[in-house]
């Protein structure tokens, strides 16, 4: 295992013929929650997909536990639980069935009590668990996807807009959950538009703009990252 759980080393990635990431470098330590902030098209999701080996770098490298994600795809993905933006899962299956299926894809098996515990942890109502997901709201679907990511028990979580669709109480619960995971040694890289949410949960925040990493904010040893400072940087630069 390398020194960092995740590292981008002068990473440049093209999507649709355009350079979506340009010479981006950052590291995420084990047990750290790192949030990438940025507007639409800033390259946030591209960064996550690069760590999953789904995109081939034009230059540089995305590394997972010190190994190139692109050259060691299977090994990299084994270490990662990924939560996509607006994960729909399968509408004709229940939450439990969806989770069982996706876990089996990863070669994992969890008993019903473990699945229920994870769903309990994300506060999905028990009555909804056996229902087909076609009846779920966006927030409920997101909770199931988060439960799936938890059940993967992977050391690294890549979260794409994880609080999208969640109500304020669920967002608070989620932030607590992320804090717990980090304390238990999990590494979290999340991308989001939500400046406030990122400051609540992240120990560091990277600001992406037009595919370039334009700033990194560190939390002070005794508190959280200053929301106003990040917001000013985010809004100011976006406006410039």
């Amino acid at each position, binding site marked *: 295992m390398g020194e960092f759980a995740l590292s981008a080393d002068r990473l440049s990635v093209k999507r649709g013929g355009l350079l979506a990431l340009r010479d981006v470098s950052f590291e995420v330590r084990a047990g750290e929650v790192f949030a990438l902030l940025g507007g639409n098209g800033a390259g946030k999701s591209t960064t996550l*997909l690069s760590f*999953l080996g*789904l995109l081939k770098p034009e230059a540089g490298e995305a590394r997972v536990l010190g190994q190139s994600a692109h050259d060691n*795809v*299977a090994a990299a*993905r*084994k270490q*990662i639980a*990924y*939560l*996509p*933006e*607006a*994960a*729909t*899962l*399968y509408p*004709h*299956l229940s939450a439990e069935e969806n989770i069982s*299926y*996706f876990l*089996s*894809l*990863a*070669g994992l098996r969890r008993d019903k009590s473990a699945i229920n515990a994870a769903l309990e942890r994300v506060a999905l109502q028990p009555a909804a668990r056996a229902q087909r997901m076609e009846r779920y709201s966006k927030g409920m679907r997101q909770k199931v*996807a988060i439960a799936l990511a938890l059940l*993967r028990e992977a050391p690294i979580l890549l979260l794409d807009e994880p609080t999208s669709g969640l109500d304020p109480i669920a967002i608070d619960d989620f932030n607590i959950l992320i804090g717990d995971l980090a304390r238990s040694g999990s590494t979290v890289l999340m991308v989001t538009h939500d400046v406030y949410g990122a400051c609540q949960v992240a120990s560091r925040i990277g600001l992406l703009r037009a595919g370039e990493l334009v700033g990194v904010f560190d939390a002070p040893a005794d508190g959280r990252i200053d929301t106003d400072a990040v917001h000013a940087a985010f809004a100011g630069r976006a406006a410039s």
Partner: protein
Amino acid sequence: MTVVSSLFRELSFLLRQRAIAGLLVLALLLSSLSISTGLTEIAHQRAAIERMVLADKADRENAMAKAEDWGGAAYSSFHLTYLPPSDLAFAALGQRDLSPWKHRVNLLALEGQIHAADTANPELALAGRIDFAFIVSVLAPLLVILLLHDLRAGERAAGRHDLLIATAGRSGGLWPMRASALVATLAVCLLLPFWVGAALAGTQLAKVLAVSLLVCVHLLFWAAVSYWAGARAAAGSVILTGLVGFWLLLTAILPAITRVSIERAISIPAGGDIVLTQREVVNDAWDLPKNVTMEAFVARHPEWENEAQIDRPFEWKWYYAFQQVGDQSAETLSTSYRQGILERDRAASLAAFVSPPVLIDRTLQGLAGTDTRAALAYETTVRDFHARLRTWLYPKLFLEEPFDRAALSDLPAYQPLVVDE
């Protein structure tokens, strides 16, 4: 997790999707229907043959009982010829829909009897029958396309693609597994009714295995094409349109172009012209000097030269001689008709290599003995049988043997062609 257990996992997962389950049930129903109609049709044909064999024998015995001379006996007695269906014909009816598989012939000129039904079954010639070969060669590719075209595009559209890949670890494993599970299940849905039909029909195991292999190879071809197209980063509707266009090209457009090209390149006389040529010669013979007819006959049968003199106004040997001369006059046309059919068939065999559906259909017909070659082989047995009847009759007429009704039991009997061996 083993490959087999992964296959079963994907299968049980996929079968819970209504569209997929619906398509597979449709495949099972279509295959069952085609096998059922095929078995019914072949049972009807076998029953018809059984009835006709009995009726033919009774009718001939009745005619012969009334006959008073050799010529009259030959004139009024008809002989059933037929091509019995093979043990695989239920799966590929082929030319049995278009070409006659039964003729009742007598000792008059043969060409008219063979080609009189040349334009039979125009409706079936247009559409064909929905048999198992049609389902496998034409509709099965469409089912493969419908099942596989949005294997990935559907997941991309639903926003699950990246999650699936990230969770499954290797992208190379999930899609082939899903495609294999779907194609294998489709193959079972198509073949299961065939296997039942083959058991009921007593089809040889080698043929069952050959058909099963053909079906699997054909499905694999379309699965490979659909899989390749489905891997493009395009919308499912775009992939589907492209694949259906390709299917249309291979199953309808190319075969139609090929057929027209072959028909233009290899011309064959019309069956009606053969009938007309033969009948004109037979009719004209009544008005011609008898020696003209007999000279033409003796040219083919020099062994009867010394007995070819016709002294009376009507003699059976003259009558049957001008029947044969009628056939001789149509011989060139008839030969070029058969050669043309064979040449077209050979050309179609080569052209089939650019259209897998046509290739599969033709191969199934070949295995079932229902193809053009089988139809021509049957026609050859009719010609041979007719020649044997003439060989039996001519000595009696030309040597003027006294009529002996008991000797009629020595008439040659038709031996049907067995295509199951």
